[in-house]
């Protein structure tokens, strides 16, 4: 080790939330590089020290430890030393396509980005033509990572064939699902990957203008994106003449304003137009008539960020990775009551049990696991005996669940599943855009009825009513907000019926 090794410390919001800035202040500033996070959030703040045989990790660090380490030259026998970061089991299993540079380089260091091959996919796209890009993405089998899993190639083909004087690329960074933070990590840790993906999408469909719609709850991501866009423009990597190719693409970041439903693509487009985030009736699909009525590609952050790798290595190489019809890698996010929470990128097909038990290490509280919610607030609750499910869109759909954006929220045995079902309805009522009746009124009535069930009022009759209501919401709602709210409710009911029928109310009555 040299006397003054380079030090890498994340400035990812999650790392900051547990004191990364304090640790940074205790380290020699001239050696320090601030990066994104590797995703091992339970180890944050995680310091990495550059040595001839790789980066050595120290974490989780407190200010005192950091000072001591800096004074003593980062000895490998310190209690917080984790050894070589690349060799940690959490890192070894991963196949990092999207998050290749996340946690490794300074997200705003364009030279480091370029040196690590960041521009290769974009250069390949610039050397290719629009139809070939669309074809490559189609062959890769890439599916939308926002939750619906729609094939990206088909969407791109539709938009590329539409005739219009202006087309748009809109990145959906309204990552509102509880238990998901991979979009945020990428935007903070390697915004270049997303920007490159968006330019490639623009080249593919003939769009010259792009928007990133980022939720306002992510101020760090917004700041990083804006800074990255400015420096890309400064270098001529973005703007009127991308890398001297004569092709143009403009990019702007727009903030959401605290509305969950704006993650639905048509509500997001309304919001981007400066309006209330109300869902649009489809058809027409956004690929034909989207932002300002023009053909628009709306893709999730991770979908777009997968594209540069696909262009660099070819559609076939990407299609070789994955499981069944879910090709490529997925960012799995372990959250909630979990001992080792964080994000890991691996092939589709890994089982939920492997993720939670092997990587997550079980519950944080140490109590038995009772339920896992996969896919955000609209995803199903899966009981402890159902964890052998492979992470794959179809396998989840067959089990009455959904993979969604890959968020996994773990609950221990103290959770009351009837309360969770009630919350699902309350959340829908709170966040419904109000356009369609099943969602707007149904969620209200759902919350009221589950509340009655929890109070022990006409339990059987009310349960029947809830099931009936869920059918109407599923079949009659305009978008996934009302259409999928029944998923957590019905899965809770199916797997944990005793939580609804043995209501606390009866207990309360005897206590009172």
């Amino acid at each position: 080790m040299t006397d003054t090794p380079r030090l890498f410390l994340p400035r990812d919001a999650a790392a900051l939330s547990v004191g990364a800035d304090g640790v940074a202040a205790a380290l020699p500033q001239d050696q320090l590089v601030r990066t994104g996070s590797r995703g091992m959030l339970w180890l944050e703040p995680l310091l990495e020290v550059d040595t001839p045989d790789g980066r050595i990790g120290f974490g989780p660090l407190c200010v005192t430890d950091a000072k001591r380490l800096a004074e003593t030259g980062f000895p490998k026998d310190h209690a917080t030393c984790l050894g070589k970061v690349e060799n940690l089991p959490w890192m070894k299993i991963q196949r990092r396509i999207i998050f290749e540079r996340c946690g490794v380089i300074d997200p705003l260091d364009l030279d480091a980005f370029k040196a690590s091959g960041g521009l290769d996919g974009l250069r390949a796209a610039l050397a290719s033509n629009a139809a070939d890009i669309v074809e490559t993405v189609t062959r890769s089998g890439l599916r939308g990572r926002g939750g619906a899993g729609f094939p990206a190639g088909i969407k791109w083909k539709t938009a590329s064939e539409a005739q219009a004087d202006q087309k748009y690329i809109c990145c959906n960074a309204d990552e509102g699902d509880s238990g998901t933070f991979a979009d945020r990590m990428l935007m903070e840790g390697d915004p270049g990957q997303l920007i490159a993906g968006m330019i490639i999408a623009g080249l593919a469909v003939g769009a010259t203008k792009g928007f990133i719609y980022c939720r306002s709850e992510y101020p760090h991501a917004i700041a990083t994106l804006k800074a990255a866009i400015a420096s890309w423009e400064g270098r001529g990597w973005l703007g009127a003449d991308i890398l001297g190719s004569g092709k143009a693409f403009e990019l702007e970041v727009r903030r959401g304003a605290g509305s969950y439903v704006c993650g639905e693509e048509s509500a997001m487009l309304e919001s981007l137009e400066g309006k209330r985030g109300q869902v649009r009736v489809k058809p027409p699909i956004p690929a034909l008539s989207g932002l300002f009525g023009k053909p628009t590609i709306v893709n999730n952050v991770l979908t777009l960020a997968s594209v540069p790798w696909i262009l660099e290595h070819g559609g076939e190489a990407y299609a070789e990775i994955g499981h069944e019809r879910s090709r490529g890698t997925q960012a799995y996010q372990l959250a909630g009551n979990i001992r080792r929470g964080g994000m890991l990128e691996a092939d589709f097909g890994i089982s939920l049990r492997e993720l939670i038990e092997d990587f997550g290490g079980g519950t944080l509280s140490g109590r038995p696991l009772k339920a896992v919610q996969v896919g955000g607030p609209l995803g199903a609750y899966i009981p402890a005996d159902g964890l052998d499910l492979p992470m794959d869109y179809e396998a989840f759909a067959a089990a009455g669940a959904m993979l969604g954006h890959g968020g996994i929220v773990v609950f221990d045995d103290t959770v009351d599943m009837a309360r969770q079902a009630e919350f699902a309805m309350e959340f829908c009522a709170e966040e419904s855009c109000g356009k369609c009746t099943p969602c707007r009124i149904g969620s209200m009535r759902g919350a009221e009825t589950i509340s009655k069930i929890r109070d022990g009022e006409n339990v059987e009759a009310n349960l029947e009513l809830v099931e009936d209501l869920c059918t109407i919401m599923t079949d009659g709602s305009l978008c996934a907000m009302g259409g999928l709210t029944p998923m957590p409710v019905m899965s809770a009911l199916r797997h944990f019926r005793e939580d609804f029928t043995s209501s606390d109310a009866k207990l309360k009555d005897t206590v009172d």
Partner: protein
Amino acid sequence: MREQSVAADYRLTHASTKQFQMARRALNSLQRIIIPGESCVPHDIDVVAKICAHHNHDPAALLEILHDTQEHFGCVSDEAARRIAQDLNISRADIHGVRSFYGDFTRDTDKPKLKLCRAEACQAVGSEELARRLSARGIASETIYCLGNCALGPAAMIGKRLIGRASAELLEAELADD
């Protein structure tokens, strides 16, 4: 007459949204609109004009304009809304519709400093208990659904500062520092 039409417009736009805010909250807002008088504190309206100009008077940038206004004044007052409507050449009803749809915007400077995540991942590590403890200490918090810190919950935010593994004691100390 004007107030009646504003109230009618309010009822129309609100009949279809945020039902769960319950009758009481709707009634409160309705009263605020019917009773004449400006919301928020008096402030320099030229700043609003500058914000609009910064965004090229583009109606599509309305959310950005409202964000900048909210950040600067701590609210989007009726006075500010009037100026934005004028500068963007859109109706005040449009502005009101957008302001009331999104949780980030308020008509008055009554937003608590502290944001507390109450979504599933934070519920799984005791955010509900934390909310009870905070209110027992007389600390007001705004309910947020997800701050993107789901592996290190309960999560909270003060200004733009994200806080992980939050406890009532920690948040009280952070608020005192702020």
